[in-house]
């Protein structure tokens, strides 16, 4: 996997984290470490040789080392909590300063050893207890995520809980200034890698599940719809219901579900539609392949149907043979080891760290409804065999609403920059702050695109940006969610950019495609367009007239 340079800042010896990260990222990863103990210096005046605007800072400190008042509080000295929080405020200001000079800041929450009794029964009492104070200090850290779009606070307590009583390692600390045991650094490294995956747009987007003994207990073909284990009062049925609830929770945050099952389709759908204990219903699934075919082939078909790359897929199946088949045939698909005990299904799903995203927007919350609309749209296409493709497009009554970049749409625009792979001209990954900074320079424009049709509102699903230099304009970004690809919106976006360029007396619009492993669909759009081709990857639109707006699209500005 790839990651930008990482710079570790800490008040303790953090070399075990550096080696753990290198273990996953590879020897070529650029990982530097600030001199330990010089936290404020490293935040306020970072070494420009080690920290640039492409660097991710990982700042892991102990509260007693960077907040003097908390050190005194830990010794049960008389300390005004308000004074300690004022110190925390100075520390968070330093973090904001650092965040302005780098790409991202990851900061674990502050922790203290669980074994410390401190004020015991009173330790959570506001104004007195040390743990009460620490909770408030961590809230101040978390609030940084509201103040800055490139600061993320990680839950270090979860790393310590994973390890238990041996999380803190006093002897290792006294000898090497390393306060935590190696498993804590291993847990931290895993969590940080998940965060980097999220920030680089590598989050998984869809979970494909088997049915028999995965979504419900038993084999519906043998046991019949009334004989399967689901819900009710037996533990096994409860376990499958709990697993379905966890899957439903994923859909609520924008993760899609699909089915790949070797089964009789009509019987399986009967259970999904009618079984009184089913939590997931047909409308929760973006697609399904319920047949007797090879599951690898079925996943490839689902990938094409849903326009999602296989690297977005997670495959869950109780059968280790099917898991092995998918792992070997489709290595891009994440196939988690799955427990044999159904009671552990929900917890295993809940523990997956592959769905993390840096932002959740209204489009994510509405995704399930969007998928239902998309399935209806596809059904309308296949159900109109006599109509031409353009007639079908026309029947969609698609409208494209254009918005200038604004604080309200910036989070979603940032998400599209970092999640969209297929229709993405350059795949330059920029944080929301970086997009805002880029757009503020003279001669640059960024538009956000909302798409809706008669089946529903797909939400903010596209971004176009343009950079004008005299008589020439360069299309900097052409990004469109796979959800709305193939309906002419791509060409409406070219129209939008070229119309603006023409209004600025620009005579040539240049569009340079930068190839990645996944953005082949973008090149296909350009090749099939009315643009002139200057080379294999450079396309142009010349003249005073804008690129034609597809007749089936209504543009709203």
């Amino acid at each position: 996997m790839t990651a930008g340079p990482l710079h570790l800042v800490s008040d303790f010896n953090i070399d075990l984290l550096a080696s753990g990260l290198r273990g996953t990222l590879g020897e070529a990863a650029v990982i530097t470490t600030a001199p330990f103990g010089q936290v404020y210096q490293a935040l306020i005046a970072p070494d420009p040789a080690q920290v640039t605007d492409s660097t991710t800072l990982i700042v892991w400190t102990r509260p007693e080392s960077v907040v003097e008042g908390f050190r005194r509080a830990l010794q049960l000295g008389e300390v005004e909590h308000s004074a300690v929080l004022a110190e925390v405020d100075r520390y968070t200001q330093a973090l904001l300063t650092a965040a302005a000079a780098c790409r991202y800041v990851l900061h674990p929450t502050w922790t203290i050893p669980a074994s410390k009794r401190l004020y015991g029964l009173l330790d959570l009492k506001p104004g007195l207890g040390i743990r009460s104070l620490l909770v408030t200090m961590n809230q101040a850290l978390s609030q940084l995520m509201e103040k800055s779009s490139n600061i993320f606070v990680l839950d270090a307590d979860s790393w310590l809980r994973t390890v238990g009583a041996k999380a803190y390692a006093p002897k290792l600390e006294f000898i090497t200034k390393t306060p935590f045991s190696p498993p804590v650094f291993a847990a931290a490294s895993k969590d940080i890698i998940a965060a980097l995956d999220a920030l680089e747009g590598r989050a998984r987007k869809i979970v494909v599940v088997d049915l028999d003994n995965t979504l419900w207990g038993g084999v519906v073909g043998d046991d019949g719809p009334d004989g399967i284990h689901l819900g009710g009062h037996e533990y096994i049925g409860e376990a499958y219901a709990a697993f379905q609830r966890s899957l439903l929770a994923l859909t609520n945050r924008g993760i899609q579900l699909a089915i790949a099952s070797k089964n009789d389709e009509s019987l399986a759908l009967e259970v999904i539609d009618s079984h009184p204990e089913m939590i997931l219903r047909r409308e929760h699934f973006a697609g399904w392949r319920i047949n007797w075919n090879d599951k690898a082939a079925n996943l490839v078909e689902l990938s094409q149907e849903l326009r999602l790359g296989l690297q977005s897929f997670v495959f869950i199946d109780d059968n280790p043979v099917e898991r092995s088949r998918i792992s070997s045939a489709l290595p891009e698909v994440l196939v988690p080891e799955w427990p044999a005990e159904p009671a552990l299904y929900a917890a295993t799903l809940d523990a997956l760290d592959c769905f993390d995203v840096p932002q959740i927007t209204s489009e994510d919350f509405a995704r399930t409804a969007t998928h239902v609309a998309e399935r209806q749209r596809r059904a309308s296409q296949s159900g109109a065999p006599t109509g031409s493709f353009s007639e079908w497009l026309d029947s969609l009554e698609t409208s494209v609403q254009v918005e200038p970049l604004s604080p309200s749409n910036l989070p979603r625009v940032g998400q599209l920059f970092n999640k969209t792979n297929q229709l993405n001209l350059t795949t330059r990954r920029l944080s929301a702050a970086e997009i805002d900074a880029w757009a503020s320079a003279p001669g640059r424009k960024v538009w956000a695109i909302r798409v809706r049709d008669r089946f529903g509102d797909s939400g903010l699903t596209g971004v176009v940006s343009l950079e004008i230099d005299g008589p020439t304009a360069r299309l900097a970004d052409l990004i469109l969610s796979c959800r709305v690809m193939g309906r002419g919106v791509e060409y409406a976006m070219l129209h939008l950019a070229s119309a603006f360029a023409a209004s600025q007396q620009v005579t040539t619009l240049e569009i340079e495609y930068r190839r990645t492993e996944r953005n082949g669909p973008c090149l296909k759009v350009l090749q099939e367009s009315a643009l002139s081709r200057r080379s294999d990857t450079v396309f142009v639109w010349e003249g005073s007239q804008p690129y034609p707006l597809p007749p089936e699209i209504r543009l709203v500005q």
Partner: protein
Amino acid sequence: MSVTRDRIFELIGAAARDLNATQPAHKPFEPQEDTLLNADGGELSSLAVVTFILAVEERLGDELGRPVQLFDDSLIADPSGPFRTTGSLADHILGLVRTASA
């Protein structure tokens, strides 16, 4: 309670697995009889050697049901001492256990 040299090697292997959680996945530390530790040419960093010795110390303490003092500042600084190789470490542990049992 006493332990055999073979059992000590099993504990050393378990400690190596603890350490490997923070080592490059493609070159895990897999100690053999003559694997160098703090001697010149060893594959582990000085921090990793200390972390490994402490992990062995903890595993041994759990095995014996009592605290064991394995780490020693002067020994860790001596490249020809008992922390030279995994084998010399096992011999050192065996000597400590026998002395304590005597």
